[in-house]
């Protein structure tokens, strides 16, 4: 198949590079709309169960380490900044600078997943994974202490399990997006290394940027809902 060098020209089915760029970007925005709707349904479920079983959410939130969540939030915000700057440098034609910024973005993403790994493995070893539900005595003491501290009379252990279903599904789907994002970053690195972008063509960097910012945006809502509320 003939490969179009977009630094020089546009695909034959477009009338101009501008049109090709706008079409590509619009497609990415439509994709972002579907992402928001997909997570939107999960957020809808989060609130539904929260209103039905508020006590389980108090206990669930306290079982998570908000400091790790906050650290991950800051790292993700930093990665959004470096991604936005990478788009900017590509627009200016500085592929080498953009490359460094994409590398920093990737490192932030890896840091996020490492923290997530420790959080998940801690919960799974404590028997709090909903599919292999067997809370260890140490955690049962912790749960009972939280219940006593807040005077949660209506707390039931099975509702905590439900909270953890919501937690693992929502942060898990978000985590999958981070991993896919890391893959996309490597794709960008390869193309940046080959100097494939220019002031005239940077659609791919911009598109991955949009995706990355949406992933950040979803975490902005997830962090307070899971760790602080």
């Amino acid at each position, binding site marked *: 198949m003939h490969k179009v060098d977009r630094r020089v020209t546009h695909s034959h089915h477009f009338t101009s590079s501008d049109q090709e760029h706008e079409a590509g970007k*619009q497609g990415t925005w439509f994709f972002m709309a579907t992402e928001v709707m997909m997570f939107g349904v999960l957020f809808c479920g989060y609130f539904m169960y929260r209103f039905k079983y508020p006590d389980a959410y108090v206990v669930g939130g306290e079982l998570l380490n908000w400091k790790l969540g*906050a650290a991950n939030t800051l790292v993700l915000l930093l990665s*959004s900044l470096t991604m936005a700057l990478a788009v900017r440098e590509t627009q200016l034609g500085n592929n080498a600078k953009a490359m460094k910024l994409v590398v920093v973005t990737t490192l932030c993403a890896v840091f996020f997943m490492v923290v997530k790994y420790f959080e998940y493995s801690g919960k799974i070893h404590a028997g709090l994974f909903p599919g292999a539900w067997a809370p260890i005595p140490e955690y049962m003491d912790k749960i009972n202490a939280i219940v006593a501290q807040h005077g949660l009379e209506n707390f039931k252990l099975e509702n905590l399990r439900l909270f953890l279903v919501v937690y693992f599904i929502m942060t898990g789907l978000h985590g999958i997006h981070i991993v896919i994002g890391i893959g996309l970053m490597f794709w960008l690195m390869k193309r940046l290394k080959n100097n494939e972008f220019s002031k005239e063509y940077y659609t791919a960097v911009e598109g991955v940027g949009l995706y990355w910012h949406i992933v950040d945006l979803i975490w902005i809502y997830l962090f307070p809902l899971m760790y602080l509320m």
Partner: protein
Amino acid sequence: MSGHNHIMPFATNLKVFIGLVSLTVFTVWSAKTIDLGRNGNLILAMAIASVKGSLVLLWFMHLKGDSKTNQVIIGSTVFFLALLFGIVYSDLFFR
């Protein structure tokens, strides 16, 4: 080749980032120290998150100054999301 470059100044990027970090600190601080009741704190946290989300959408994602079509795409997404929440919760609360 013209027109499609909306290059955001470095300083603007940095300001948006500082705004996002400050609001994150405010989110944690308000959740830990201000007691508005469980639902009050929830509403406050979601309000702060929405301000942060708007910063990301409008500046990092360049929706401000983007084409009308792209603005309508994301605007209609918000509308349908509101519809989803509205119908589900009106059923949940007023059944």
